């Protein structure tokens, strides 16, 4: 066999196998759909959905279309992913640093946490929080307020909600703060490179963050009110809270389980990253007179982040994908609303499952692109 044939034949076989498998599947799908009298197409998305979703971020009821139901599910998934990523990052960083603590007890308890939570299936943890732990909470009428305003009951968490006036002005001021901080940061960098002067960027930005929004309150006509949840009797035994913000127990259980579980993995990434920096770096930095805080901020963290970020990105992706376990406790996420209820009602398995999978693929791609961009930004810039 000559060299060329060796290169071409395996490729031909691969292409042939792939084409055959896909051809076989489409052929069968065609026949099956003809037999059942369904037409392939996405027209059903505009039809009226006629099912209700118990928790949604946007206005939705049965009279809206399937496309809107899809959006409701997607937003709910993104909400869980966002909160989960936030909490698990904070928790993971704390525990990762605690695992490197010189204090024996702290190190052991952090290790215990990691070993404990990551060796139990996530689904089991979600079930535990939802069916066992949160079910032990008091009924609405028996709940004691926490800090006077939060009510944690079996029906969820009730918190005061914000009532804004002229919210857009406040928003603009925040945007202005962010832009000015970026400008000041660049200016400070230039100043340091050209004249060797240092600006206290951190204090200036904190100051800006407090002062500008405060000005909008004083003269911009922005005002903030709280609406407190108030208990209301429906019947002799039925009580609910009205007003305020209610967070359903499904959301609490899901974010709790997801964050506690993913935090263990992030903690391990953080630990590995900090341990990956050689001791010499720390000693060299200390020997040129940097304070411990400066050593951490200017020498250790920039290098450790390079090691930490890629595996942590993976964990964020895992968390987002794992949020689909919501379907198990009936939190209305993308899988439950769209691949569950909508699929049962329309029977369009192929279209709906592919849309769901494509959505998750795009979320994964978006997160990994974002993190790749950040990773590239902090990567070693060789001259």
């Amino acid at each position, binding site marked *: 066999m000559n060299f060329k044939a060796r290169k071409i034949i395996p490729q031909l076989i691969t292409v042939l196998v792939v084409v055959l498998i896909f051809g076989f599947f489409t052929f069968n799908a065609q026949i099956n759909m003809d037999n059942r009298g369904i037409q392939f197409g996405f027209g059903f998305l505009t039809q009226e959905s006629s099912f209700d979703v118990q928790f949604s971020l946007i206005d939705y009821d049965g009279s809206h279309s399937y496309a809107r139901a899809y959006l409701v599910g997607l937003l709910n998934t993104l909400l869980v992913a966002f909160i989960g990523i936030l909490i698990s990052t904070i928790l993971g960083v704390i525990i990762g640093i605690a695992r490197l*603590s010189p204090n024996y007890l702290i190190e052991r308890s952090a290790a215990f946490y990691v070993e404990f939570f990551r060796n139990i*299936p996530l689904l089991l943890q979600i079930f535990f929080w939802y069916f066992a732990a949160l079910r032990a909470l008091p009924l609405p009428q028996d709940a004691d307020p926490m800090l006077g305003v939060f009510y944690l009951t079996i029906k969820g968490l009730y918190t005061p909600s914000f009532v804004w006036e002229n919210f857009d002005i406040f928003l603009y001021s925040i945007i202005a703060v962010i832009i000015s901080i970026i400008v000041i940061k660049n200016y400070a960098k230039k100043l340091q490179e050209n004249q060797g002067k240092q600006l206290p960027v951190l204090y200036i930005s904190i100051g800006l963050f407090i002062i500008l929004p405060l000005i909008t309150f004083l003269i911009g006509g922005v005002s903030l009110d709280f609406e407190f949840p108030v208990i209301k009797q429906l019947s002799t035994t039925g009580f609910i809270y009205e007003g305020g913000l209610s967070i359903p127990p499904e959301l609490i259980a899901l974010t709790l389980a997801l964050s506690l579980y993913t935090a263990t993995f992030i903690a391990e990434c953080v630990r590995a990253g900090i341990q990956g920096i050689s001791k010499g770096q720390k000693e060299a930095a200390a020997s040129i007179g940097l304070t411990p805080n400066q050593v951490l901020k200017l020498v250790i963290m920039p290098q450790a982040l390079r090691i930490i970020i890629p595996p942590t990105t993976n964990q964020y992706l895992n968390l987002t994908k794992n949020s689909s376990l919501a379907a198990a406790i009936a939190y209305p996420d993308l899988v439950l609303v769209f691949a569950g209820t909508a699929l049962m009602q329309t029977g369009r398995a192929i279209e709906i499952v592919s849309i769901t999978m494509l959505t998750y693929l795009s979320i994964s791609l978006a997160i990994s692109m974002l993190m790749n961009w950040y990773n590239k930004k902090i990567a070693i810039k060789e001259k």
Partner: protein
Amino acid sequence: MNKLNFLKPDRQNLNTYLYMGSFLFFISLFDVFLTSFFKINITSFLPSTLSFLLPLIFGVIGLHLIRIEFSGIKKLDLINKNINTNNFNAFLTLFIIFAIIKSIPPILSWFIIDANIAGDTKEACTGSGACWTYIKIWLRRFIYGMYPNDLQWRINISFILLIALAFVGYFATERLKKFLTLYYVVIYPIIAFILIYYLISGGSFGLMWVETGAWGGLSLTFIVSFFCLIFCFPLGMFLALGRRSTLPTLRYVSVGFIEFWRGVPLITVLFMSSVMFPMFLPEDFFMDKLVRVIIAISLFEAAYVAEVIRGGLQALPRGQYDAAKSLGMGYWKLHILVILPQALKLVIPGIANTFLALVKDTPLIFVVGLLELVGMLNLAKTNPKWLGFAMEGYVFAAIIFWIICYAMSRYSQNLELKYKTER
């Protein structure tokens, strides 16, 4: 006697500081111990907040007083170095010790002292602790699922046989050692399949047929993870090789396959296998639920295994390839004899993590209606005779899964050490 400076304990008055400090420290421990074990509050005459915080204050002061550098007492130096380097550390140390002391009595009473295991109805559970009677009664269901009681010996025998056959490697003589890989990769899975097909599923040789819908519990967890583990490993290896191949089509197909499966959650894959996959098959073609699930999970995990193995392949220096090629080895010989043994050695932890993830993912098969351990728990929980014991069930399952996963991760660490070669 030298002047005592309480803000800065030093060696001059070592004994005075030591006695005062340890006295305060032990008093704080004693106080917490009494409140938590015997519900006696010796500081009840104080305001409640102060009484609550007093042990912490005493403890911090005590630890501060015994924080003496180079005291000359070995044990004291050890304590200071490990748990008492500064005030903040002392605070955290106390906090953790108090948390442990406070959490022991409720946990102990829930698990053992107030728990019940006697009897066989719900009414037997009278204590305020756990009701292990529930676990005891349902244990058969948790292990065997809906498998008929009088046929469960079939599952037992197949599992015992499989475990026994897995240990063949330890007893193989030198002459047979070279066939071990063949045995574990090809023959063992075939034996396992035959056992499960003929003994557990039945239907021939006069054994009663038991449909897969009746399988369940822990045994199903093992069956699913076992087969997925066997299938996903070779598949992942080929995908990794494909992704590293110089042939563009092969590479693109592998990349596409890997990225697709890695981008979607397992639950949607299972949805696909249960609602979408049957549409892709000829109408009269029937594939069992369990088989579909095993295929789906294997394909899914294979993508992850492929990425792990690719890491190992990339970590090998080019010289290994060049050296093997210069000996005249072809593609397959080169990979089987030189590259893969080294690459796989490097990625043992990664592969172990993937397998752990696989075991932890098995409960998800509830989506297609197969009930392994967690699924059975959810079923048992809704039984009207046994309402209200969700906690016991989940704790039981958590302990079992924790033991399995922890043992696996420990074993992989051993394996890593065993195969660690100087490079």
